[in-house]
């Protein structure tokens, strides 16, 4: 009897399941390393830029221009957040969740896909949280008096850079989980080739 359900075909394959488990373990270790790198190394790299008197003079001289640049960055970042947030929302609701719902309805639910969905939801939520934290810091920076306290301004700028690095890492993380989703579904299609046809 010809069976259309691909996931059930692939789920019966013990070798394939073992391979997926192996990928899962490697994937978890990989993302933990990335997170560790971002949380430990990125802030230090950002903090490597030190304040000097010359920089202070440049900040005082270009204070207004710097603030205009920061406002422009703030606006562009807001646009980027809206664009990426919209895409992530679409992918989650119209694709990932829809596929999992269908698989569950067919009693073919895939534990890796469900786990991937949870990871995506968390990554997207983290992206939004970090973006809000970044925007708050950036807003505080723009409101600072750079003419009279350039040192404080530069220190705040370094803080903003490190928070921005977190947002960048969140985008990379979310994209990595989306890539993982493609990989899992691709394996389902590939794994179901022989038996589905």
């Amino acid at each position, binding site marked *: 009897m010809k069976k259309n359900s691909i996931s059930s075909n692939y789920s019966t394959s013990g070798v394939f399941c073992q391979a997926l488990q192996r990928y899962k373990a490697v994937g978890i270790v990989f993302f933990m390393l990335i997170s560790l790198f971002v949380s430990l190394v990125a802030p230090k790299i950002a903090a490597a830029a030190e304040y000097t008197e010359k920089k202070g003079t440049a900040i005082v001289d270009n204070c207004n221009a710097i603030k205009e640049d920061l406002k422009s960055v703030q606006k562009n970042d807001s646009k980027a957040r809206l664009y990426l947030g919209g895409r992530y929302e679409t*992918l989650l609701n*119209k694709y990932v969740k*829809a596929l999992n719902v269908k698989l569950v309805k067919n009693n073919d639910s895939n534990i890796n896909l469900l786990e991937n969905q949870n990871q995506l939801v968390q990554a997207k939520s983290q992206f939004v949280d970090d973006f809000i934290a970044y925007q708050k810091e950036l807003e505080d920076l723009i409101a600072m008096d750079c003419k009279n306290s350039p040192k404080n301004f530069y220190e705040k*700028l370094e803080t903003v850079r490190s928070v921005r690095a977190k947002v960048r890492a969140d985008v990379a993380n979310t994209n990595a989980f989306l890539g993982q989703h493609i990989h899992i579904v*691709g394996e389902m299609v590939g794994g179901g080739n022989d038996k589905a046809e």
Partner: protein
Amino acid sequence: MIKQNNTKTVISRGGKNLIMLGAGSILIAILTTVISLVIYHNSGDIYLDRSRPGFLPDETEVEPEDENVPESKFDYERNGTTTKEGLEQYLQHFKEEIQAINDYVEPFGEKALSDERLGIDASLDGE
């Protein structure tokens, strides 16, 4: 005389009450607006809202149409059986969405806040 006095008192109190009602309404409106704005700000929603003043697209800002419409026309059917063809189609559209994300040039890139970009040139250190 008594009647007249009573009437005067009633009119006077009514006017006072009307003023109090107006002032109270304005105070309540101001209070609820302030509370709403505090919640809007503290919850972080203000930072996710691009329709707030100063964040609307410029008139000169040219945006590709697809950037403004992130919604995909493709909608994966939640009912029915899972077929290989269905999954292949799913993957194809999914990859198109991923491509749209990858095409976005350096979101939150490092350079935007660099010393050089902001005019706090690090090369000044060596002078």
